[in-house]
C-alpha cells in the first residue's frame, strides 16, 4: 500500500534542512523498497519543530520533528511511517496543543494540502467562495465583505469592504486589484507562508475582489527577499489559469481577470500602498500624498484596490461560509481571526491563528512558552519595526486593534518579536531611527532628516552627554516625525523609540554591553 509522506517545501523549513530530509527519505524508502508518495506541503507553522515530517495513516496525519537527515534511518528502523514510539514522534498532528488551540480560517489548508494541486485545494473547501461570489452581483459581494468586519491585515486596519465599495463606485475603463506582498516587517511571515503553502487561496481572493469591483487586471507585488514565494505563486497562477479561476472568464462567469507577478527590489517603504504603486509603475518607490486615494487614482491612474495578502486570503472563507461565520469570532471592532506570528527569542516560534482578544501575556508565555534562551522575557515588539516595545507590565493588553492603540502601540501585521533580559533597549530605540534612515524614501523632511538626527542624538545619550536634555530632544523630534510625516515609516518610527525610552528607563544611562564587560 502506498504511504503518503509530507515534507514541507516552505522557506522556513528549507532553511533548517527540509530538502536534505526529503532526500534522505527518498533514499531510505528506495533502499527498503517502501512504497512512498512524497508530498511537498507548506508549513503548519510550528517552526520550532521544523523540519516536521508527517505521514498519513488511515486518513489521519501523524507528525515527527524536528527531523534531521541522520534521524531518517532510525525512523524507518522504528517502523516508520508508523513509528509512534520513536522519540521524535509528536502523535496525531491535529492534537499538538499549539495547533489544536488555533482557529484556522485563513490558514485552514496551509501545511495540509499540496499547494499547487487545484484538486487537493477543492477537496479541502477551496473554490467554494469564488463559486458563491460568481452567483452574486458586485454590490452583494462587497456587502458580504463589509458585513464580515474584515479589516486590512497589512497593518492599517482599514475596512476591506469599504475600500472595495469605493473602487466599485469609481469610474474607470479599467480597474486593478493589487496584492501587497511586500511583507517587510521583521517578525512577520504570514504572507510568505500562505504564498508558499496555499497560494491558490490568495488567487481566489483576488478573483473575488475582481468580481466585486469590476477589475480586469491584477498584480501581486512580492518582495525580492522571497524568491521561493515568487516561484510558487508563478506556478500557482499557471494552475489557476488552467482551472479557469482566472483568465478570460472566471469560472465561466464572463468576467475576465488575470494576474501578473511583479518583484520588488529591496525597499521597505514599498510596503506602503502609494509607494508600492509607484514601484509597480517602474518608478522610484516614493510615497504619494493622499488624496487622491488609490481607490480613485491608483496604478497608472486607474481605480485600484490595494490589499494585503492575508486580507485577500481571508475573503474566500467569508464568501464560502458567510459574513456572520467570520464576524462571530473576535472582539469589539476587531472581527474574525488574526494570524499571529511568534518570532525572535521565543521557545515555540510560529504561526498561531486565533480570534482577536487573547492577551499578549497568554500569547507570549502560554502559547510561545517564553524565550528560547530560557531567560526572562524583557520586552516584545509587536507590529514590526514601526511597532511599540511592550514590557511585561502591559501583558494584559488584549490582541485587538483599539486596545493596542490605547496603549500607544499597534498590531500592525501581527508579528511579535520576543526579547530576553539581555536586550539593550537603548540600542533597540537607536536601531529604529537607523532603520528609518536606511529605508526612508526621502520625500518628506521629518522622516529623511529626523531619522538621521535621531540616531545621532541617541549616540549622545549613549555617551552620557546631557542625557536629560537629549532625551527631551528625542521626544520632541518624535512628535515632529509623528505628525509631520506623509506615511507610516516616519510617522510610526516614534512608536518603538518612545516606548523603549518610556518603559525601560533603566536602560537609558546604561553603557553598551561590550564596554561594561571591560
Amino acid at each position, binding site marked *: 500500500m502506498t504511504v503518503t509522506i509530507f515534507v514541507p517545501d516552505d*522557506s*522556513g523549513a528549507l*532553511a*533548517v534542512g527540509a530538502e536534505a530530509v526529503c532526500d534522505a527519505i527518498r533514499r531510505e524508502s528506495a533502499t527498503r523498497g517502501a512504497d512512498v508518495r512524497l508530498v511537498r506541503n507548506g508549513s503548519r507553522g510550528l*517552526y*520550532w519543530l*521544523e523540519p516536521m515530517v508527517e505521514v498519513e495513516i488511515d486518513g489521519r496525519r501523524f507528525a515527527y520533528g524536528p527531523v534531521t537527515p541522520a534521524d531518517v534511518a532510525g525512523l524507518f528502523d522504528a517502523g516508520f511511517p508508523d513509528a509512534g514510539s520513536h522519540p521524535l514522534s509528536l502523535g496525531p498532528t491535529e492534537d499538538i496543543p499549539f495547533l489544536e488551540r488555533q482557529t484556522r480560517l485563513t490558514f485552514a489548508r496551509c501545511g495540509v494540502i499540496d499547494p499547487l494541486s487545484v484538486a487537493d485545494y477543492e477537496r479541502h473547501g477551496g473554490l467554494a467562495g469564488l463559486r458563491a461570489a460568481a452567483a452574486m452581483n458586485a454590490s452583494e459581494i462587497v456587502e458580504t465583505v463589509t458585513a464580515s468586519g474584515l479589516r486590512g491585515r497589512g497593518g492599517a486596519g482599514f475596512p476591506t469592504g469599504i475600500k472595495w465599495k469605493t473602487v466599485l463606485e469609481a469610474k474607470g475603463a479599467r480597474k486593478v486589484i493589487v496584492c501587497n506582498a511586500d*511583507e*517587510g*516587517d*521583521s*517578525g*512577520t*511571515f504570514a*504572507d*510568505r507562508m500562505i504564498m508558499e503553502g496555499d497560494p491558490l487561496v490568495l488567487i481566489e481572493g483576488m478573483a473575488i475582489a475582481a468580481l466585486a469591483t469590476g477589475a480586469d487586471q491584477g498584480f501581486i507585488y512580492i518582495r*525580492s*527577499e*522571497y*524568491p*521561493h514565494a515568487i516561484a510558487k505563486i508563478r506556478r500557482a497562477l499557471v494552475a489557476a489559469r488552467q482551472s479557469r479561476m482566472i483568465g478570460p472568464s472566471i469560472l465561466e462567469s464572463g468576467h475576465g481577470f488575470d494576474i501578473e507577478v*511583479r*518583484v*520588488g*527590489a*529591496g*525597499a*521597505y517603504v514599498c510596503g506602503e500602498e502609494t509607494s508600492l504603486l509607484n*514601484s*509597480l*509603475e*517602474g*518608478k*522610484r*518607490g*516614493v510615497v504619494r500624498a493622499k488624496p487622491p486615494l488609490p481607490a480613485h487614482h491608483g*496604478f*497608472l491612474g486607474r481605480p485600484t484596490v490595494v490589499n494585503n495578502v492575508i486580507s485577500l486570503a481571508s475573503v474566500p472563507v467569508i464568501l464560502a461560509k458567510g459574513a456572520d461565520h467570520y464576524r462571530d469570532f473576535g472582539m469589539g471592532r476587531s472581527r474574525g481571526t488574526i494570524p499571529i*506570528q*511568534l*518570532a*525572535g*527569542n*521565543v521557545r515555540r*516560534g*510560529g*504561526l498561531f491563528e486565533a480570534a482577536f482578544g487573547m492577551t499578549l501575556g497568554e500569547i507570549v508565555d502560554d502559547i510561545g512558552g517564553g524565550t*528560547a534562551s530560557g531567560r526572562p522575557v524583557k520586552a516584545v515588539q509587536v507590529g514590526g*519595526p514601526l511597532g511599540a516595545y511592550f514590557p511585561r507590565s502591559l501583558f494584559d493588553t488584549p490582541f485587538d486593534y483599539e486596545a493596542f492603540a490605547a496603549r500607544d502601540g499597534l498590531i500592525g501585521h501581527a*508579528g511579535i*518579536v520576543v*526579547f*530576553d533580559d539581555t*536586550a539593550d533597549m537603548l540600542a*533597540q530605540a537607536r*536601531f529604529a531611527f537607523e*532603520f528609518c534612515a*536606511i*529605508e526612508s*524614501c526621502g520625500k518628506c523632511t521629518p522622516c529623511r532628516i529626523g531619522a538621521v538626527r535621531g540616531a545621532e542624538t541617541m549616540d549622545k545619550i549613549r555617551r552620557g552627554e546631557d542625557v536629560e536634555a537629549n532625551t527631551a530632544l528625542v521626544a520632541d523630534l518624535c512628535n515632529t516625525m509623528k505628525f509631520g510625516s506623509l506615511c507610516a515609516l516616519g510617522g510610526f518610527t516614534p512608536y518603538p523609540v518612545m516606548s523603549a525610552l518610556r518603559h525601560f528607563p533603566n536602560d537609558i544611562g546604561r553603557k553598551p554591553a561590550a564596554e561594561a564587560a571591560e
Partner: protein
Amino acid sequence: MPLPETDLDARLQAILRAFEGVEAPLLEILHAVQLEFGHVPEGAQRQIAEALNLSRAEVHGVVSFYHDFRTEVGGRHDLKICRAEACQSMGGEALARQAREALGIDFGETAADGSVSLGSVYCLGLCACAPAAMLDGTPVGRLDGPQLEALISETRR
C-alpha cells in the same frame, strides 16, 4: 572590467524585446538585466532609457533608489545576513560582526578576490528560525558561528 559594447548590446536588446507590450516594465527589465550581467551596467541604463522613452536621469534615479540594484560587478556569491529585530533578539549582530571580520569587508562590499559580496537584509521572513541568512537565494535558519564559518568557506571554493 567593462563589458564589450557589442556583447552587451545583443543581450540587452533581447531583454528589451522580451518586455515589449508589458505595462510599466522598468523594474522588471532592471531585474532581468541584473540577472543577465550580475549588475546594471551604465551603458545598459542609457539604452533602457531610450527604449522606454525615459530620460537617463529617470532610469538612474530608479536604479539608485532600490537596494537590490548594483552598478558594479558583485562577487561570485551573494551572502546576505539578516540584521532586523527578530534576528537581533537571537544574536544576529554577533554573526554580522563575525561575517565582516572573516571576510575582511564591510556590508555592501565585495571581497578582493571577487568570491563574495556581503549584504545586509532587513528580514527574510524566517523570523521563527532566527538568526537567518541567505546564500545565493538559499535560506539558512538557526544560524550559529560554526555554520556561518562553513557558509563563508563555501563561497571561497
